[in-house]
């Protein structure tokens, strides 16, 4: 399919560290439980959000419709 391995790996590992590894390292104190929940939920929600955005673009069903000025600009500025 159209997915590249690197971003998926990087992001999953990143949020995996935040959500799975860090909760074990949280210092003991009255707020330990809250911090763990916060870390896990942050990791889960942010990873899910990024994943949905990524997956929705790997197989685009339509392409962008550009005005001809935009096409010319793109060709000049963005295409190396």
């Amino acid at each position: 399919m159209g997915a590249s391995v690197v971003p998926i790996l990087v992001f999953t590992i990143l949020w995996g560290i935040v959500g799975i590894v860090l909760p074990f390292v949280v210092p003991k104190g009255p707020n330990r439980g809250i911090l763990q929940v916060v870390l896990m939920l942050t990791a889960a929600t942010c990873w899910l959000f990024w994943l949905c955005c990524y997956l929705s673009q790997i197989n685009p069903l339509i392409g962008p419709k550009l005005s001809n000025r935009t096409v010319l600009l793109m060709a000049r500025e963005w295409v190396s």
Partner: protein
Amino acid sequence: MGNLFRSEEMTLCQLFLQSEAAYACVSELGELGLVQFRDLNPDVNAFQRKFVNEVRRCDEMERKLRYLEKEIKKDGIPMLDTGENPEAPQPREMIDLEATFEKLENELREVNQNAEALKRNFLELTELKHILRKTQVFFDEAEYGCYPTYYSSSQMADPSREEEQVTLLGEEGLRAGGQALKLGFVAGVILRERIPAFERMLWRACRGNVFLRQAEIETPLEDPSSGDNVFKSVFIIFFQGDQLKTRVKKICEGFRATLYPCPEAPADRREMAMGVMTRLEDLNTVLGQTQDHRHRVLVAAAKNIKNWFVKVRKIKAIYHTLNLFNLDVTQKCLIAECWVPVLDLETIQLALRRGTERSGSSVPPILNRMESFEDPPTYNRTNKFTYGFQVLIDAYGVATYREVNPAPYTIITFPFLFAIMFGDLGHGLLMALFAGWMVLREKPLAAKKSDSEIWNIFFGGRYVILLMGLFSMYTGFVYNDIFSKSLNIFGSYWTVNYNKSTVVTNKDLQLNPSTDDYYQHPYPIGLDPVWQVAENKIIFMNAYKMKISIIVGVFHMLFGVCLSLWNYMYFRKRISIFCEFIPQMIFLCFLFLYMVILMFIKWTCYGPKTDDVKTSPYCAPSILITFINMVLFNENSAPEVCDQYMYSGQRPFQMLLVVIALLCIPWMLFAKPMLTIRNQRRMHVLLNSNHQNHAVGSENGDAEAALAQGQIPPPLPPHKEEEELPIGEILIHQGIHTIEYVLGSVSHTASYLRLWALSLAHAQLSEVLWNMVLRNGLMFEGWVGGIALWITFAIWSTLTVAILVLMEGLSAFLHTLRLHWVEFQSKFYQGMGYDFQPFSFEAILDSAAQAPEE
């Protein structure tokens, strides 16, 4: 367990206090703020309580303090607020305080009265001075050159004449009447506004036979009682005869004009004027000294007044609380009942011991735990960070005692759902900066107690706003939207391959993802920047955002249902796990989680760069139509070349899912009532058999009873006995729950589409502001462009903050709140508890400080 996940365990305690030590102990408990007292004398009138006299004395002291405060404010003296928190004084010190306040109040009242009398005197003398000056003018005018006319009575004071006689009509009058007419006059001062009416009244009442001259006093005079500056005028009325004199005097009284004795002879007048000036000077000096004295008294009082207020309020609070206690039979000891968090029992014991030591009593207080069947209050121990989120939850309903508290999860899900709707890197940055400023400058901002309710709301929710801002920055980065423009960090993964002639001849061109236009793997983080400049951006974004709304919504609701499992496990309601949790999960998962899975399948399996037309964009099915067909048991229709279904076996599999989900409905509806009724019958039988066994008293019976009792499920945690509800009610309850859940799951899933709707609205508003406002400023060159840009930037930034950050922020906040309160919490939350309101001086002082400033 972890502190915020459930409300604290509370226990009802009985407190035995010796009468001498009671005051000090309650004072210590008030500083601690961990105990909620119950009113043990609910049917006693407020006037019949034990400590009503002390409360009355405190009220009186507060009244005196308020009077002092008013006077201090009138003089504009700043009141020192050192922020220190003095302890509640001992009862014997109360008498000292009362004496001090009494003395201060009396002194102030005396000073005020004296000042008023002096000012009145001053006013009279000033008016007299003006009269003497002005009437001089009148009499002078009369002397120097007025001719007798029909109306004027110019010939008046003839300085050469010794007798005070003036002839009104001059020679003619003498000739005509024969007798010289004696003209009397009165002089006085009246408010300027009243002069026209006064003149008219005089004219009418005296039939035109009196003559009024008046002159305005230029400087305004101070009215002693009200302190206003008023404009007055001097007048002099000439009349003849006693009748007119009486009439004139009455009219003057009616119009509240003050009359002054004015000597006619100018020499007398001059003498009087000098006397008046001397007296005025003396009065001025005395007045000045009085004001100084008053000022000194007030300044001395202003140093301590905040302290005194705190002390008096604390005393009053302690006596109010003592009124809630019961006096025991021996009359030596006070009994109190209070709700206390179990974890804090040690701290409270220490406080009580401190109080007893302070009061010098020998008998230690006794704190007894009591068993109770009542519902304890719900106490969530929060810190400054979690407080904001707990408030959001409690606003909907305080959690039932010891049920799962949604607040810790809300810390992240609330800002996250907000951010999906608000996603813009720029606006999120503004929000985060504002909240960050509030958080970093917490202490000084909190010390500055403000009246503005809006500011207090923003400041109280600063951590919520900070998290909302940070998450909005993340989602803004993923949406690739900063003030409606996109960032191109990694280079767009779409490119143009058209040649020049095609571009020039066609106004719009569309890139084809199945060709080299698309690099075949997506932009690593977020949306590709090409979409921002595309004309059909909304079509792509709609499909994307609708899907993520449903995905997030289904996961949120699933999380809510799982929390209900945790509740059932804690309260040992195994029936509910089997009859409610499992069918609810199955219903939600088999229908809506399946739809989410279909979405993921569509994203991954259907793509443009494929040889098989069946997985090409042409054949990609609409998830919504597929779902509708699934529920209605219809056949999918697809164009000729495409597969009817996404995977083989989809139709029978889907039918199976729907059938099982539908079977969950009667499961939810009938299983729990039936089991409950069966249990109730079993209990009845057991109770009956127990009675019989005890009546007989046989060993066998006892053993049987013991066996039978062993089969009953383990006892619940300290909890009120479940009342036996009639069968009809159980069925109705369950029916309502089932309908609510089933219909709710459909409507709530659709309700999460508001995440898409608001996100679209926000993006469009942002774009409109850029295109219609700021872009116009960027179109000019040179210094004209500089000015134009400056103006348009001002407009654009004002509108951005007002509309996009504030209004849209508020709107997204409300929608997120609704999603949490309704869609999330209806899956597990009962919210039927009541809040723990401990006896705390801090709370009382805060509310007292707020109240009068409103």
